[in-house]
């Protein structure tokens, strides 16, 4: 029975010229989005890699220099590309991609690619995955509704059921065929994207993205078919379905963002103010302070000398490092507080997932591509860890090889070649797993709900005939 129903639905779909035209147009749009995404990603990645290599070679080839001076000259690091950046850039275009690392300061990443994309559409964008989730999801829901409501609209439901069709087979066939039709439209783009994948775990991420995207499409096709079967006879049925989708995919996420910001406010000014207030209490490598005096006293005691000139190490360099250690701890604490506030905001933002599967899928897609907010935080944290490691190495080298007040002492040029280039750890999809669970759970919950709605719709069909 199921096979017959599927065969019937496939035949009807094939004969529907309008549907086929929409599917072909959608497939072309997705394919163009993949090709355009690969082009943009290649250009950006090449430029950043070139710049990173240039910066590193300049560092390695620098002339003899005082290590702390070298720390002040600093170095730039460039955000590595996300594993699926060509098809899923996530939130990264709106975040700084370059960080200037220097002594004493934790600078925020700057130069966000979106800062020059003035008219870049934020309503879906042109990259493959967001386009598939938004436009493909809408298409699956819409066609699902129209196919689900077909018999009710024409008043032939009793006729169809009268020839012995089972509600479950009919409903399953409709959902499966719609899913297959919309899914087929995505296949050329999926293939093109798969051919452009890097090595590493990009393949695993891509497979997960493809799987969850298809589940999302199936969920919306199922909801559409169920809605068509339930509301097919009502004139406003389709309007209700379309409006509910638009509200869930476009309106509620923005409302949730706005409410989250108002409920748990956080401003850069407040973060900076708390950090500055704490800085004033600690050692300062370039100014006098009570903390400096305490540090000097403790260092003299540690080395058992009375004057800093008698120290076997350079007190200035140790003070610089004490400044780094203290400021690092302050920043860790204050940034952790800010991150906790952002996490609360993100939890509130997830309220939008309750109104439809698409917001959860969009979040999940960015996370699978390691292009979500946490990926940016990881880049920021990895850059800071790299900065601290380098700065400590520079300060201790100066401390151990020069005397207090000897600011003219220089490290040899070849010593700087021992500093490795910035290479943040590339997380595997398994490492990202905890962040994927909420989105996956929400998507699965919606899939289960869609299946339940289909089952209820099938039962209703059977009951309608019996009645």
């Amino acid at each position, binding site marked *: 029975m199921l096979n017959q129903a599927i065969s019937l639905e496939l035949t009807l779909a094939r004969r529907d010229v309008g549907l086929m035209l929409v599917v072909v147009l959608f497939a072309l749009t997705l394919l163009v989005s993949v090709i355009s995404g690969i082009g943009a990603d290649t250009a950006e990645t090449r430029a950043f890699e070139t710049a990173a290599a*240039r910066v590193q070679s300049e560092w390695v080839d620098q*002339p003899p220099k005082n290590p702390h001076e070298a720390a002040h000259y600093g170095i730039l690091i460039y955000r590595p590309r996300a594993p699926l950046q060509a098809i899923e850039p996530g*939130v990264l275009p709106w975040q700084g991609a*370059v960080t200037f690392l220097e002594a004493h300061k934790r600078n*925020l990443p700057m130069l966000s690619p979106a800062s020059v*994309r*003035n008219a870049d559409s934020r309503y879906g*964008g042109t990259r493959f995955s967001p386009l598939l989730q938004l436009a493909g999801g809408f298409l699956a829901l819409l066609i699902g509704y129209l196919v689900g409501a077909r018999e009710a609209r024409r008043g032939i439901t009793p006729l169809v059921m009268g020839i012995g069709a089972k509600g479950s087979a009919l409903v399953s066939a409709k959902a499966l065929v719609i899913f297959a039709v919309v899914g087929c439209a995505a296949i050329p783009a999926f293939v093109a994207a798969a051919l452009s994948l890097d090595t590493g775990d990009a393949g695993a991420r891509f497979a997960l993205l493809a799987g969850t995207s298809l589940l999302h499409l199936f969920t919306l096709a199922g909801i559409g078919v169920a809605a068509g079967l339930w509301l097919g006879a009502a*004139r406003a049925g389709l309007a209700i379905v379309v409006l509910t989708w638009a509200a869930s995919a476009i309106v509620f996420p923005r409302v949730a963002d706005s409410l989250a*910001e108002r409920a748990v406010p956080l401003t850069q000014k407040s973060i900076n103010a708390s950090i500055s207030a704490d800085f004033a209490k600690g050692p300062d490598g370039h100014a006098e302070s009570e903390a400096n005096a305490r540090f000097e006293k403790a260092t003299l005691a540690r080395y058992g000398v009375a004057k800093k000139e008698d120290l076997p190490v350079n007190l200035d360099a140790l003070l610089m490092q004490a400044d780094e250690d203290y400021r690092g701890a302050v920043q860790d604490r204050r940034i952790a507080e800010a991150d906790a506030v952002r996490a609360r905001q993100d939890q509130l933002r997830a309220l939008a997932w309750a109104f439809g599967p698409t917001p959860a899928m969009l979040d999940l897609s960015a996370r699978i591509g390691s292009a979500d907010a946490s990926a940016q935080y990881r880049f920021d944290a990895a850059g800071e860890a790299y900065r601290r490691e380098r700065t400590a190495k520079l300060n201790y080298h100066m401390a151990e090889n020069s005397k207090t007040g000897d600011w003219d002492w220089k490290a040899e040029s070849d010593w700087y070649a021992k500093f490795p280039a910035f290479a943040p750890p590339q997380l595997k999809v398994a490492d990202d797993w905890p962040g994927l669970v909420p989105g996956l759970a929400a998507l699965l919950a919606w899939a289960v709900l869609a299946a339940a709605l289909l089952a209820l719709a099938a039962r209703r069909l059977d009951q309608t005939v019996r009645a």
Partner: protein
Amino acid sequence: MIGRLVRLDAALLRRSRLAFVTLLLLLGTGLLAVASGADWRQRYAGAADATLDTALKARGELVGIWDGIASGAVRPTDDNSYDGNGVYVPDPRDPYVAGFYNKQSAVLPAGPLLGMATGSTELRASSHIVNGNPLAGLMRVGEPAERVNPGALAAGRLDVLAFVLLICPLGLLALLFDASAREREDGIAPLLASIGATRPQLLATRGLVRGGLIWVIAVLVSVVGFLVIGADDPRRMALWLLATTIYVLFWTAICLAIAASRLGSVGAAATAGGIFVALLLVAPGIIERSLRPDGLIEARALADADLRAIMRRNGAPEAVDQTIDAVGKRYWQIDFASAPACARRAGALKDYSLRRLLDESYSSAIRDGASREALFDAKLDDWGWLVPSLGIRRGLEAVAGADPARQRGFEASVIDYHADFRDRVTRTILACGRFDRAEFEATPKFQWAEPAVPTASFWPAVIATLVASLALLSFALRPE
């Protein structure tokens, strides 16, 4: 007849729960958009306040030193003999020192209608600290002072512009998707015809009543927005309302054209939904992506890398003299070999020359990037009108003062102000002069001249949308 049909439609609307819920949700979302936009305006101003505080604090410290010098209570450090030990008290009379410690704020005020539209203000700079020796500070000239949670940035802020662009069309689709199919499917079209009501009259009435209701809400939300943000520029407000009106008219016309195509309720709803997705979700991105040149941000990233290279190379002793000579000849038209000894102060001049070189290199990169962006903008102005949601959005962002061109103008002004500031210091250095209190007090302040309402992107979009609306209306309301 129209009057009777209006009364009939009003009665139908009063009884429709879908219409009631839609209007209520629309109004509620509109007011939330006003609150959200106003909240951003406040945060934007707060970020600028922080910059002002930094500049005022620095100024307060310098004033204290000037007072101390006058009373003899403070003895500034001599830069030539300072060995790194003891408290360093900057000498505001020394131009090399004053150039660094005399910090001035450059603040881009909130756009006249910021809050109605957020535009690029979340992504670019709103304030900057300027001094005679900017260096690393200049590298951040395009960076936002207030950072938003990354998770919220991609979706875009719910402001009045998002409400008008995205949510009002949804309201129109809900109220107008079955503008004529209802009567046809219920079999009451002949009844209406018997009282002399024609289909164009029925459609015109529906458009007038339902489109009018959404227009009233859009205007009401906009006016509440003006009041909440304290807008006081009548011309911009008028342009905002004009574009809003034409945009609502456009979507009303689309709904009426769909209704006139004699599709059934389902076909009409499906077509309307498809048009919504195509015009608002897909088309703007495709137009923008196909016009955008590659290498906009990359140029700046590479410029940063170049600057680091210049700085490091200049750490080499033999390179320092070369840099000083090159910079002196190129930018100051001076040969340091024959310049007064007082101007050629070893370490200070090295730093100053290097910074001048970096300034020029980075300013040039920023200006180059800005000119590329301006070309991109011009292309979008040429073609953006093809998609009303893109063209109207760009137009309204410009009217609100949240467009990237205004941000670029600010960045250019900061660079110019910095150059003037630096040249003032440089002249004193090269003349072997010293600043006095009066010159310190007379330090020019950053001035921002609000540009006239930019209409390059506004009128083509508004006119194209109006023409499209009229064409759709003439199709929808053509005689039977």
